[in-house]
């Protein structure tokens, strides 16, 4: 069965983008050349105070890593999107972004003047640029997802990035369960020890989701997710009620 791709865009390395994604759409993200890091944040476009919540996402599903079956929750108990396909088995959401001073310390600072769009952009500034377009500022930036990046913790809690986690062609698909403002960047992971500033593009293919059925893998991945979908159902009852009255 082929899937009609409604839109196909490759986000260049060290770049940022944002858009509103409707419920019922899926995005397949593909690490074209290997070693990508995709920073992601979600906001409710109808209520920007509702945003992706990494602690709730992790504790609701008793997990530190995110993979197929996991749902990505807001702070209001709703599911922004579900991970319906995943080639990698592990994506992290606790390390945040790299910032300008960390980039400069690791790889030197290539500014726009000398390097134009090959500058060494950072994830923190990338998110700020996109968030400010919607009236959001630094105070509004929650912990983000770092798709394609695996960070492990040892018994003492020490963190380590698996630098060879994502091979060329690896993809992960998010199915959006409610209208979502998606903020993204392709800047390096903050724990990257690469010798050179990593530059990895990410392909974004949009397609219409198969409707969620009662035997849906993500909905049934954990009992918590069944209740998360129930919360979404109530939310959509509210937003789909006929206008007027009173």
């Amino acid at each position, binding site marked *: 069965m082929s899937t009609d791709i409604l839109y196909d865009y490759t986000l260049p390395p060290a770049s940022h983008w944002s858009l509103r994604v409707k419920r019922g759409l899926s995005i397949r993200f593909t690490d074209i050349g290997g070693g990508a890091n995709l920073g992601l944040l979600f906001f409710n476009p109808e209520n920007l*105070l509702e945003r992706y*919540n*990494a*602690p*709730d996402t*992790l*504790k*609701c599903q*008793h*997990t*530190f*890593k995110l993979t197929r079956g996991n749902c990505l*929750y807001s*702070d*209001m*108990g*709703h599911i922004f999107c579900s991970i319906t396909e995943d080639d990698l088995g*592990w994506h992290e959401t*606790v*390390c*945040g*972004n790299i*910032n300008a*001073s960390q980039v400069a310390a690791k790889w030197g600072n290539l500014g726009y003047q000398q390097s134009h769009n090959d500058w060494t952009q950072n994830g923190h500034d990338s998110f700020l640029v996109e968030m400010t377009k919607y009236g959001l*500022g*630094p*105070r*509004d*930036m*929650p*912990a*983000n997802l770092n798709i394609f990046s695996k960070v*492990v*913790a*040892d*018994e*003492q*809690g*020490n*963190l380590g990035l698996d630098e060879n986690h994502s091979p060329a062609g690896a993809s992960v698909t998010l199915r959006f369960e409610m209208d979502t403002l998606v903020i993204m960047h392709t800047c390096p992971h*903050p*724990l990257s020890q690469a010798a050179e500033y990593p530059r990895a593009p990410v392909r974004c293919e949009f397609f219409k989701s198969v409707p969620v059925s009662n035997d849906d893998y993500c909905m049934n991945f954990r009992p*918590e*997710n069944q*209740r*998360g979908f*129930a*919360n979404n159902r109530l939310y959509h009852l509210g937003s789909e009620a006929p206008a007027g009255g009173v």
Partner: protein
Amino acid sequence: MIIESALLQRNADFRQTVEAGGYFIKTVRRGQTLRILDLEGNQAADTLFYNAGDITEHYSAADTIREQGNVYLSAGSTLLSNLSRPMLEITADTCGRHDTLGGACATESNTVRYALDKRCMHACRDSWMLAIAEHPEYGIQKRDIAHNINFFMNVPVTSDGGLTFEDGISAPGKYVEMQALMDIIALVSNCPQLNNPCNGYNPTPIELLVWS
């Protein structure tokens, strides 16, 4: 890391007991030391910090664990802001490990975690909502409610990527102490959660003490 404090309770400039389900909000000046004392043991203190001079700067769990390269907080941890600036340093800790991954309980997440009909049980984020509503003088808004620290809470991460909420490693009289590196506002919910072992299913009081 277990480090005991040399500070004596009787010399504290400020002491306040917070009952389970209550909140605490107070400015702590640069150089002052704040202690959170687990009076009866196994209690979770859900804590946020703000820069008192600019409340858009707040404690950041992601910045803190990324820069220390470790998911747990203990003595020696520097608590960083969303601008990656040091806000406080943990100077004493008789508990040994504190969580900053698990966030705070909320009525909304309780529906997901436990049952849809547990929506209307008291939760930390409700305490914070009341705190910032009753204290508009601090200027903190819902948008500023970031990811918090769970002092005294034990949330081990496993090497295969699991996350578990375990019975607390705290006990009566255990405490954590931190020195403010800037003027900060501390906002604490003394956790009312009844559905998991973070409070031993029995939420109890905590005490907050400040030394100059």
